[in-house]
C-alpha cells in the first residue's frame, strides 16, 4: 500500500518535470523572446529547466526501487528522454545556433560612402538611397540628418 502510493507520487513528479521542461523550451520562442530582458540572457528558461530537474530528483526519491513495473520504467525513460531533448535543443539554439552568423567582413566600413541602391518599397515604388537622403522629413522642409539602414532577416 505504501509502495503503491509512493510510486504514484513519483510518477506525478516525473510528469510534472517533463511538462516544466517542455514549457522551459517552448516558452522561449513563444513568449520570452519578445522581450530583451528575457531574450538576451534567457534566465527564466534556465530557471524552468532547474525546476524540472528538481521535480525529477523528487520523483526519483519518491520511487520505491523494488517494485517498478516495466511499463512504468519505459514511460519514465521516455519522459526523461523528452525532457533531456528539450534541454539539449534549447542549449543548442541559445549557445550555438544563434551565434552562427556570417562575419560580414566585406561590409562597408565607417567613413566609406554607403553603396547606392534602388529597391521597391511596400507600394511597389522604386526608391533609391539618394532619394532617402534628400527627401524632406515629413512635417519639415529639411532633408534628414541621416538615414539608418536596417538589414533584417524577414517576417516569419
Amino acid at each position, binding site marked *: 500500500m505504501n509502495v503503491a502510493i509512493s510510486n504514484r507520487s513519483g510518477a506525478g513528479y516525473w510528469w510534472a518535470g517533463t511538462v516544466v521542461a517542455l514549457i522551459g523550451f517552448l516558452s522561449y520562442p513563444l513568449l520570452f523572446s519578445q522581450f530583451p530582458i528575457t531574450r538576451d540572457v534567457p534566465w527564466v528558461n534556465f530557471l524552468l529547466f532547474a525546476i524540472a530537474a528538481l521535480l525529477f530528483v523528487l520523483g526519483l526519491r519518491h520511487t520505491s526501487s523494488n517494485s517498478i513495473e516495466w511499463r512504468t520504467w519505459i514511460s519514465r525513460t521516455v519522459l526523461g528522454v523528452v525532457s533531456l531533448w528539450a534541454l539539449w535543443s534549447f542549449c543548442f539554439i541559445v549557445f550555438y545556433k544563434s551565434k552562427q552568423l556570417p562575419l*560580414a567582413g566585406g*561590409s562597408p566600413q565607417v567613413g566609406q560612402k554607403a553603396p547606392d541602391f534602388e529597391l521597391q518599397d511596400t507600394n511597389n515604388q522604386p526608391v533609391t538611397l539618394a532619394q*532617402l537622403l534628400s527627401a524632406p522629413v515629413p512635417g519639415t522642409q529639411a532633408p534628414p540628418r541621416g538615414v539608418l539602414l536596417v*538589414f533584417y532577416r524577414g517576417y516569419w
Partner: protein
Amino acid sequence: MAISVDTPELSRGLCQRHGYTYTFLSDPKAEVIRRYDVLHPGAGIKSQDIARPAEFLLDSSGIIRWKYLTDDFRVRLRPDQILEAAQTLPQ
C-alpha cells in the same frame, strides 16, 4: 529604413500589423544585401538566402558614421543605442 528579402506585399502586411511608418524596401534577390556583404546563405525558414542582422547609420551625404553587426541573432540593437549613435551626426 528596413531592407529584407521579403516581397513588398509581405512587408506591407508586416507594417500594417505593427503600425510601422518608416520605409521598408524589398531585396528579393538579395542583390543589395550582397553589395553590403550581409548575406546569410540558406538561413531562411525555407532555406532561402536572407540578410544577417546589420545596421548602418549614414550621415546626410551618405557616408557611414556607425555600424552594428550583432554576433548573436537573439541579441538585437536597442533603440537607445541607435539614438546615442544618432546624436553624433552633424547637423
